[in-house]
C-alpha cells in the first residue's frame, strides 16, 4: 500500500491489516495503555504534511496527533494564510511539498479526486482525509474499528446508513469498506438524497427508516446540511427530522444491543436527538478516540510498516 485514496480500493486483507494494526496502536498508546510515555519512535525523522483545503479541526487534529504519537515531524499547511489563498495551483503546491521532502501528505480537499491527482505529482504517500463528495477512507476505517470494538465483528452485521448519502464522502467510504468486510449495508434517505446510479452499489436502499431500524445492528447517522433544503432536496428541517431523524422512540425500536454512530459534527435536533447522541448506545466519542489509533496505523503502514 503506497497511498490511501479510497476505501473502495482497499482489499479485505489490507483493511483487516489496518484494523489490527490500529488495535496494537491503541494497546500501546491509548488511554488504557500500560506505558506512561504514550509515544512511539517509529516515524522519527519522517515528515508528514497536513494539507487542508477545508476547515476541519477535528480531522486535522486527529491526523496531527497520530503523526506526533509516531514521532513524525508534522507540518500543517492550510489553505488559508498560505500561497494557496493567492491562487497557487494544487500541482504547484504538490511540487513545493515534494521539494521540501514530505514523506506523506494528508490531504483534505473540497474537490472529489484531488488526493488522487496529488498522488500523481508527489513521490511521498498520499492519504485522503476527505475529498469533496467522494470518500473519507480513514473515517470508514475508524467506524469499522469502533463497530468491531463494540460488537466484536463486522462480518454479518446489518449496518444502516441514514441521511444525505448523495453528498456524503463518509457514506461512500463506509458502503465500500463495510461491504468488503462482510457487513450487509442498507442506506436510508429521502429519494432526492440517494445518488443516481446507486443500483451499482453493494447496498439495499430504503426510503423508510422505521422499516429497517428493527433489523439493524448498527445505525450510522449522517450530518444533513440545512442549506440542502434551499436546493429542494427536502421541504423543511422539521419534515426531515420527522421522517429521517433518530429520536428516542426510534432508538427504542432498535435491537437492544445495537449501536448508534455519527461521524460528527452532528446537528443535535436535526438528524439526531440529544438524548440519543448522549445515550450509552452512542459511540460518537469512541469514534473520535479510535480515529487517532486508526490514523496512526495508516501512517505507520504507509511510511514505516515495510521496514
Amino acid at each position, binding site marked *: 500500500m503506497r497511498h490511501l485514496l479510497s476505501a473502495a480500493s482497499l482489499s479485505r486483507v489490507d483493511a483487516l491489516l489496518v484494523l489490527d494494526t490500529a488495535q496494537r496502536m491503541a494497546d500501546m498508546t491509548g488511554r488504557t495503555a500500560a506505558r506512561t510515555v504514550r509515544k512511539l519512535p517509529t516515524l522519527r525523522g519522517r515528515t508528514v504534511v497536513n494539507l487542508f483545503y477545508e476547515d476541519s479541526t477535528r480531522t486535522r487534529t486527529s491526523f496531527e496527533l497520530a503523526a506526533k504519537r509516531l514521532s513524525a515531524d508534522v507540518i500543517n499547511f492550510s489553505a488559508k494564510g498560505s500561497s494557496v489563498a493567492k491562487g497557487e495551483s494544487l500541482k504547484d503546491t504538490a511540487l513545493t511539498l515534494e521539494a521540501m521532502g514530505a514523506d506523506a501528505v494528508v490531504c483534505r480537499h473540497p474537490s472529489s479526486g484531488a488526493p488522487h491527482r496529488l498522488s500523481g505529482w508527489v513521490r511521498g504517500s498520499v492519504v485522503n482525509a476527505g475529498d469533496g463528495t467522494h*470518500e473519507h477512507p480513514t473515517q470508514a476505517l475508524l467506524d469499522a474499528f469502533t463497530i468491531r470494538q463494540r460488537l466484536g465483528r463486522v462480518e454479518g452485521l446489518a449496518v444502516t446508513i441514514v441521511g444525505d448519502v448523495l453528498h456524503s464522502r463518509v457514506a461512500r467510504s463506509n458502503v465500500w469498506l463495510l461491504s468488503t468486510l462482510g457487513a450487509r449495508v442498507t442506506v436510508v434517505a429521502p429519494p432526492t438524497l440517494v445518488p443516481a446510479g446507486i443500483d451499482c452499489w453493494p447496498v439495499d436502499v430504503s426510503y423508510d427508516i422505521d422499516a429497517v431500524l428493527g433489523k439493524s445492528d448498527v445505525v450510522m447517522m449522517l450530518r444533513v446540511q440545512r442549506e440542502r433544503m434551499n436546493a429542494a432536496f427536502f421541504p423543511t428541517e422539521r419534515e426531515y427530522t420527522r421522517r429521517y431523524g433518530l429520536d428516542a422512540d426510534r432508538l427504542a425500536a432498535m435491537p437492544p444491543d445495537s449501536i448508534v454512530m455519527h461521524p460528527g459534527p452532528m446537528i443535535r435536533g436535526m438528524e439526531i436527538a440529544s438524548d440519543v447522541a448522549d445515550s450509552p448506545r452512542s459511540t460518537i466519542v469512541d469514534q473520535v478516540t479510535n480515529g487517532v489509533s486508526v490514523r496512526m496505523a495508516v501512517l505507520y503502514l504507509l511510511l514505516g510498516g515495510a521496514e
Partner: protein
Amino acid sequence: MTARTGEARTGEARTGDTLSGGWLIRGARPLGGAATDLLLRDGIIAAVGPEAAAAAPRGTRVHDATGLIALPGLVDLHTHLREPGREDAETVDTGTQAAALGGYTAVFAMANTDPVADTAGVVEQVWRLGQAAGHCAVHPVGAVTAGLSGTRLAELGAMATSAARVRVFSDDGHCVADPLLMRRALEYVKAFDGVIAQHAEEPRLTEGAQMHEGAVSARLGLPGWPAAAEEAIIARDALLAGQVGSRLHVCHVSTAGSVDIIRWAKARGWRISAEVTPHHLLLTDDLAESYDPVYKVNPPLRTAEDVEALRAGLADGTIDCVATDHAPHAAQDKETEWDAARPGMLGLQTALSIVISTMVEADRLDWAGVADRMSLSPAWIGGLAPAVAAGPAVATGPGVPTGPGLPTGPGVPTDPAAALGPGRPADLLLLDATERWTVEPDRLASRGRNTPYAGMTLPGVVRATFMRGRPTALDGKIQ
C-alpha cells in the same frame, strides 16, 4: 505505402504559384473506388480519369497517390480556435494547421472567444485571420445572444451581411435556455437562411455538473450531468423549430435518448440537423475514474449504450455529421483538480481516425458515408454548398428514410462521388487507410495538449490535404 510529391512532370516546377500551375494526383481512389487521376487547376477539379494527365499543362506538379483514398476536404461545424482571447491555448493559425493536418479544408470557429464573436467586427477579424493563415477556410460562427448572456439577441443580421457572411449562430458553451429567446432566434435567422446551433443543456439541471450522471458519478462523488438535461432542450427546440419552420442544428449529441428524439423530429419533416463528436463515438464515462480532466468535456462522456446509439444514429443518418468540438486548453486549465478544469478536448487531427476506427472498420459507414458525414453534410448545414432554394423543408413523411434529414434541393451533392467530379472545388484529402499512427500530444499542431487519445494507435493517416487546388498539408507537414 508512402505518397511522394514528385518533381515537375514536364519542365521546371514553378515555385510560389502552385494554384495556376496545378497538381496532377495520380492513382488515387476517390471514395475508395477504382484508382484514377485527378487534375487540380485554378482551384477546381479540372479533369478526372485518363484524360486528366493529358489535360495537364506544362508546369503541373505530380503527386503520387497510389493506393490512397481521396475524400472531399473535411468540414468541421464545431471548432474552438480560441482567438481572440486565449491565444495561449490556440490561435487561428495553429488551430487551422491542426485542421489541415487532419484533412479539413473548412472549419466553423465557435463564438465563445474573448471578446465574444457577437458583432460584425469580431467575426470579420476571425475571418481575416483565417484568410491570412491560409491553412483552411475559417467560417466564424456568430453568437446568438450578446456576450453569450442568454438575455438579448446579438446583431445577427449585421454578422450575416458582414464580410464573414455568417450563417451559423451559436452560444456554444452555453445553452440558449430561455424558450422565448430561442424561438425568436430561430425565426429571425430565416431572413438570411441562417441556422441556430444549440448547445443543448438545461442549465438548472446541470448546476455544478462534472460528468455523466450514472453509476460512475455516484461512485466518484462527482456531481452528475443527467441525460434528461440534454434531451429536454432538444425536444423543446425541435418543437419550436417545427412550429416556426426554422432550421435547428443540435450540437454534440451525446445520449441515446437524444438520438431517439431527433429521429422522431426528423420523421415529422422538421428542418433539424445534428452532429456527434468523435469522442462521443469512442470514449465512455468510466475514464473519469482516473480523475484526469483530459477526459472532462461538455457534454460529458456517457455510457457504452449511448456510444452505440450514437454510432447507429450516425450510420442511419439521424445524426447528419461528425463535428470535432475541438477545444484546446492551456496546461494550467487541465493540470488541476477535476472540478477546477475546463471542459473540452482536442479533435481536429484525430477525428478522421476515430471515425474510421468506430464506423468504417465496423462496417457501419463506407467511404462515401464518411464523405457525407464529415464533408458534404456539414458543408450544407453551414451554408457552404452551392445555393439551395430557400423555403420549407421537403416533407418526407414518417416512415420514409430521410437520409441526412435535410432538403435535397438543387446544389446539394446527394451523390458523394460527385463531390470529387470535374468542376467541383479542389478541396480534398488523400488518406492512407491501411496505415496506423500513434497519437503523441507534443507532436500535434495545436497549442493545447489536451488530447484524450495520447498513446493510442489509430487507423488512417492523412497524406495530403488540398484546399482550392493548393496543398495545405503534405505528409504531416504544413505547406
